């Protein structure tokens, strides 16, 4: 067996810099994002999407089925469109009805299976599903845009481009469930299948097919066809709230692997000694595209829009000084923007990866977690104490007795069994707090180790409440990017930063925060359409709408 030397790389940006919420909340999608990875795979296999069923009334209610073959397996999206009264339309997880419901099915569903899914999918969490159901989702219309496009098509006209650009999607998902929820298939049943090995690959496939369905639906109801560039800009919106936030805390190995792959990619491109004229020109194009994307990224939020506008101004200023010639130009660029705010830094970090797929795309193979956490045990408490002091200084700094450092608590709501974030000193329920307070737990462990010697197992036996903290400390050496190095119960903790981090790994763009704990995003905007997979299916980072 040949030994393959790893490509040269500069030092990784350390976890102490990278794993801070404010920086994580500034992340942008990259070519390593899960949706990009999936699209490259679909294109490589020249996947063909076939619409195998279309039972829709003229107003667009009924069902459709799309099938494709990927990695030797056939998958089908069963899409159910329902006539939803306007007063029942809400994106909140407490909703009980939606405009549309979906199942990604393992294989081609026969009539009985289609009927089963049409009956159960609209009920979502209230129904129970089978191991042939891989993903469960639902979506609501962007009523204003959907109705506008229908009306335009019926008049034989193109829809308003400003509205297309402003909204960017015909429907938005409000949940995309996988991995055994409500009886659907456990992820481990499909995660070795070619094409679905990557994190959330099945979910991304589902979202891409849902986008395809929304195009078909609006064309059906509107009795007309949309131009390809319009359809390409119509992605799938998504409303993401607190439900997604705890994942980053409860899956430290995955978080580590995602971050480590991204940081390694950045370190590799920074080590490139010089760029070809083609690569330099490509980066110039991407720099300009990013500027246009920022200008087209308009949100109503009074806090976030000024931030985007500031980034736009900063980008114009710093990118004017980008010099992609010379020695290790990308390292020079990253060093130059290190003086800028996190938004500029992370936008630059995402951009410099784009031209170098051959160098970095293989890292996506390392973004899963096939084994779960495992690490060398720390045999004595001296070693445990040393690890805390080496990796968890961020956890030792806060005073968790102080109101500001303990002002919030994570919990699971009785109403919907979903994560929530409460105000510790203003709401009931802190005694049922979810164990996401890793920093506080590690500090408590560290304080509990004072004056203690001997084996960790003996300490753990005597102090069972410290088991979670012990496991997190033991994991830190092996998974250095596995911990969010911020106090997640501080009054200042903004869950939106956690959401943006995870969503950027999904491949989301156009973050549109509605508060500090939920955001709209757009997925698949700019992604190839189903009939475009044989072309260049990978050049849609930070898409712009030129019409």
């Amino acid at each position, binding site marked *: 067996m040949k030994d393959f030397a790893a490509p040269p790389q500069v030092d990784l940006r350390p976890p102490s810099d990278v794993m801070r919420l404010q920086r994580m909340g500034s992340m942008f999608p990259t070519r390593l994002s899960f949706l990009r990875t999936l699209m490259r795979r679909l294109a490589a296999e020249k996947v063909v999407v076939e619409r195998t069923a279309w039972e829709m009334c003229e107003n667009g209610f009924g069902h459709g089925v799309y099938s494709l073959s990927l990695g030797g397996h056939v998958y089908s999206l069963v899409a159910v469109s329902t006539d939803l009264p306007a007063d029942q*339309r809400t994106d909140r997880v407490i909703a009980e009805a939606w405009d549309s419901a979906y199942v990604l099915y393992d294989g081609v569903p026969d009539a009985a299976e289609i009927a089963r899914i049409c009956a159960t999918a609209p009920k979502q969490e209230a129904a129970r599903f089978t191991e042939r159901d891989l993903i469960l989702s639902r979506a609501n219309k962007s009523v204003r845009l959907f109705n506008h496009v229908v009306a335009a098509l019926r008049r034989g006209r193109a829809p308003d481009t400003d509205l297309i650009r402003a909204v960017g999607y015909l429907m938005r998902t409000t949940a995309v469930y996988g991995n055994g929820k409500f009886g659907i298939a456990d992820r481990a049943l499909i995660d070795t299948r070619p094409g679905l090995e990557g994190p959330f690959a099945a979910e991304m496939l589902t979202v891409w097919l849902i986008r395809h369905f929304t195009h078909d639906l609006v064309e059906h109801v509107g009795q007309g066809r949309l131009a390809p560039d319009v359809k390409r800009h119509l992605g799938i919106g998504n409303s993401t709230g607190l439900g997604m936030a705890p994942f980053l805390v409860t899956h430290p190995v995955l978080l580590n692997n995602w971050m480590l792959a991204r940081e390694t990619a950045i370190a590799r491109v920074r080590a490139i000694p010089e760029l070809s004229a083609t690569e330099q020109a490509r980066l110039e194009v991407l720099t300009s595209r990013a500027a246009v994307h920022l200008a087209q990224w308009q949100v109503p939020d009074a806090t976030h829009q000024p931030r985007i506008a500031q980034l736009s101004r900063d980008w114009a200023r710093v990118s004017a000084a980008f010099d992609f010639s010379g020695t290790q130009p990308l390292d020079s660029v990253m060093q130059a923007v290190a003086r800028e705010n996190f938004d500029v830094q992370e936008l630059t970090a995402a951009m410099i990866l784009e031209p170098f797929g051959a160098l970095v795309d293989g890292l996506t193979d390392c973004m899963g977690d096939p084994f779960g956490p495992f690490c060398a045990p720390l045999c004595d408490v001296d070693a445990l104490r040393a690890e805390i002091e080496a990796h968890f200084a961020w956890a030792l700094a806060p005073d968790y007795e102080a109101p500001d450092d303990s002002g919030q608590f994570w919990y699971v709501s009785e*109403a919907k069994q979903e994560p929530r974030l409460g105000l510790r000193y203003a709401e009931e329920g802190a005694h049922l707090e979810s164990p996401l307070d890793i920093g506080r737990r590690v500090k408590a462990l560290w304080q509990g180790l004072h004056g203690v010697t001997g084996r960790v197992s003996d300490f753990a036996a005597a102090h069972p409440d410290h*088991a979670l903290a012990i496991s997190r400390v033991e994991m830190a050496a092996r998974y250095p990017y596995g911990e969010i190095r911020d106090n997640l119960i501080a009054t200042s903790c903004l869950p939106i930063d956690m959401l943006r981090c995870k969503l950027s790994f999904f491949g989301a763009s156009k973050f549109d925060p509605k508060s500090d704990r939920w955001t709209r995003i757009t997925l698949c905007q700019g992604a190839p359409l189903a009939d475009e997979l044989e072309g260049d299916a990978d050049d849609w980072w930070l898409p712009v709408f030129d019409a």
Partner: protein
Amino acid sequence: MTLATKAARGAGAPPGQAADFGRAAVQYLMERKPESALIAALEALPAGPITAVPVALARRVEDPDMGVALSDPLGLLLSYVAAHPLLEGHKGDDGAVTVDLRTEPKTVRPVARVEVSQGLVDHLQSLAAKTFVPESAASRAAGAGSGLSDND
């Protein structure tokens, strides 16, 4: 997080031990072993295997030469071992379980479906429900999602 993990939390297990139990419970049910052991383990809290087994396995991992067989009165230990990426275990004729360290991690593969009695599901859900926080006016105002009207 599995239902068993949430149930263990609701029954009073600390979070680390609850997570270990959740993973072990999946393995246990995949092997179609009697559900009574899971219920007994939850009822034994704060004592019993949910707190004792992780310590026993930690001691085993700390001392590779330990080589002792561990008792397994409820039959859960092998499931904990099966859920651990670095451990292998086998049961002797005397019922004691010998746990060995692997040199490489193993992957844990589930089966498609496991038949679980409704009684067990109900029991686990009732315990898990003890960890849920009821809504209040304050929590509704500062909840997770959007306002009631968020159409665009």
